[in-house]
């Protein structure tokens, strides 16, 4: 299962690669990364058919995660990828907006990787 992680913090990449190293080794998951909403759209433009799940931070400079979510829901509906939003501001308003714009799930920072792993595994089954 191919997962695209969108976050402006570059160190998110090695962190995911190491947190999921067993799953990657066993080809359960495959990760790609984008450093901004704009980056993510570029990526999807070429490879949207491969990506099953998008994990996106909400609070990024430039295009926010919520905007990215709206664009994805507008432009890529066949097949629609799953989108999970991640934010440090785990407030009602963000949650409501994310759900309204069609997010599949909503996670708050700091990420609980055990929980995330379980969620991903349920999805991939």
């Amino acid at each position, binding site marked *: 299962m191919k997962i695209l992680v969108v976050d402006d913090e570059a*160190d998110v990449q*090695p*962190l995911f690669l*190491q947190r999921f190293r067993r799953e990657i080794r066993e080809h359960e998951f495959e990760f790609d990364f984008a450093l901004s909403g704009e980056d993510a759209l570029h990526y999807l433009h070429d490879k949207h058919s491969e990506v099953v799940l998008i994990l996106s931070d909400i609070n990024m*400079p*430039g295009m926010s995660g919520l905007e990215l979510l709206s664009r994805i829901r507008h432009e890529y509906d066949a097949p629609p990828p799953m989108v999970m939003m991640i934010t440090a*501001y785990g407030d009602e308003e963000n949650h409501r907006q994310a759900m309204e714009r069609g997010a599949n799930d909503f996670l708050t920072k*700091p*990420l609980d*990787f055990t929980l995330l792993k379980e969620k991903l595994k349920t999805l991939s089954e």
Partner: protein
Amino acid sequence: MKKTIIFLTLITCFTGLHAQEQRVKKVEQDLKTHKQQDTLRVNRLNELQNLIVLPLDKADSMANEALLISRKLNYKEGEVESLIVLSRVIYRKNDQRQARSLLDQSIALAEKLDDKEHLANAYATMSSFNNLTGESKQALEYDFKSEAAAQKTQNKALISRRQAGISGLYATSVGDYTKAMEWALKAEKNAEEANDLNAMAGSWSAMATIFTNIGDQPNAIAYYQKALDANKKLGNQALEFNLLNRIGEMYRLTDKYPEAIKAYEEGLSKTQLPYNIELTQSNMADVYVRLNNLPMAFKYAFISLNSAKKINDTEGEEWIDGILARAYLKLNKPDSAIYYATNGYQKAIHTGTIEFKRDNSAALANAYNIKKDYNNAYKYYRLFISYRDSMSNAEVSNHTNLLQYNYSLAKKQAQITSLNQEKKMQYYFLAGSAGILILIGATGIVLYRSNRQKQKANTLLSKQKREIEEQRDQTNKVLADLKLTQNQLIQSEKMASLGELTAGIAHEIQNPLNFINNFAEVNKEMIEELEDELKNGNTDAALAIANDIKANEEKINHHGKRADGIVKGMLQHSRASSNVKEPTDINKLADEYLRLAYHGLRAKDKSFNAEMVTNFDPKLPQVEVVPQDIGRVLLNLITNAFYATQQKKKIINSDYKPTLTVSTALNGKSIRIKVKDNGIGIPDNIKDKILQPFFTTKPTGEGTGLGLSLSYDTIVKGHNGKINIESKEGEGSEFIIDLPLA
């Protein structure tokens, strides 16, 4: 600065401003010829010490002699006086306990004798001892007792001097300028009633101190000059020296170094006392350090250090050690700096003088920092902070509002002038009519009548004079009140901007902390894997994992430092400005505050978003600025810019994309910082108002209206720079800051 006050209190209190040179000669002559152990000798011995400051050994033997004789003769008044004089000498020898115990004895004796005049002097001395060790509350209590005792003597000149003393304490140690002004005015009134030029000069110099402390230089200079002129009539060189030294101090502390040097040099020509010479030369050394004229700085520092040692002026040594340490720091010789600062610091611990503990610990922190001995650097930095905070440094940072109340002052003064003119006119009229009357009759009746008229007119005139004086007093009080309020407002603006930062900082710090926790957990798992591989003998796999662990450790370290930097930045922002300019990377500073402002607003308003564009010149040279001050300006401009975009977003549809651009560039001999937004812009009719204090377009309670005016002050007055504003209503604004490189 405190050093000056020390000497001033000593001299103005105890020499009682009567130090005419001739009297000194006469007393010295009497002491040489009159060796009999009688009350006259006791009185002369004490009088001399009240007139001038003697070298320590001589002072010691004379004070002891006076005490011995007065006790032998059972001459109680002499004993009280001798005890006070001796206590001051002992204090100079740094034996505080002994000094205070002698004073206690003199107070008890004076009370028994019901000798209010000496009681007032003893309490005043106790007050200055307490003030010298920073116990300003106790100092004030003793000064009140001293004034109460003086009141009972009915001696208005003495009362005036004690009131001037209280004023001085309020102005320099307590920082309550309103109270200081009230007492100075009382002192002036009593001095006028006593018609005592000495006491008048004392009250004027108290007022000058207040004006100095509230940053009103023109008035401070005016009052010092008044005191100085009065003093020239009295021929008291000792006081002339003190006033010149104070003027020098004022210039020194307001960075007007050439003027300071001039005043110090003139002061030097008025004194032969080793003490005064040392004080002045050490102050000159400090000025030369600040001027980066290190050869002159070292010259005066070493001369004055030698004299300080010779005359046992330990506090002087502490002060000069600190100057030398700073000079060596400028030469980048941290070892020498540590040598002198350690000396000064240890002595300051011994004498308990907070100011010099503070200065020397700051120098030590800097020196250890250069040596990369961060343990010690941190230790002294913390000490420095605690000393600095324990001193109530009523820091007057700028003059934004001076204009406002100068306006009301000018209005009052115009009234006073017109009243004065009226008074003059009436005077001419009266003189004229008196002349005519004499011409007409010159009879007794006419003379009698004219005399009565004159009396009436005089009553009228003195009534008017009283009114004018009352108005002047009121104005001065209002002035001091306003200054206090202004300082409180500036502080509250700083706190408000800190509040805006807090949320941003919390967010900024959350990310590195998450990384630290995550990578630490990953490493724990990987170490277990490493152990498994080693047990199975898979060396290559084990080495690969070890490499990953190492890389992760570096990341932990990196994010730890990142969090550390954020906390440091926050501490710097909340701290009162140190006013120390240091080479600063403006790109880094701008980036930091842009992020903080963004996250701060983001935390307050979840729907907030804006595109941030940075055009930083990578070749931008560092520039000497006070980083937290410039940071505060940037924070203010950026927050305003974001606010302008959010206002626009409320008005127009969702096609609008809020954008903020921060750029830096080298522009000739200055650095240009631009903060540009595409927000609502500034309407033409308020363009010339936005830099005024208290002007705000935000709803009541949201803005202090001080942000931009403080920014203007920081850039223009604090850094010799410029702020320009370009704005079109409805299209956006651009704030352009120019900071000169040198």
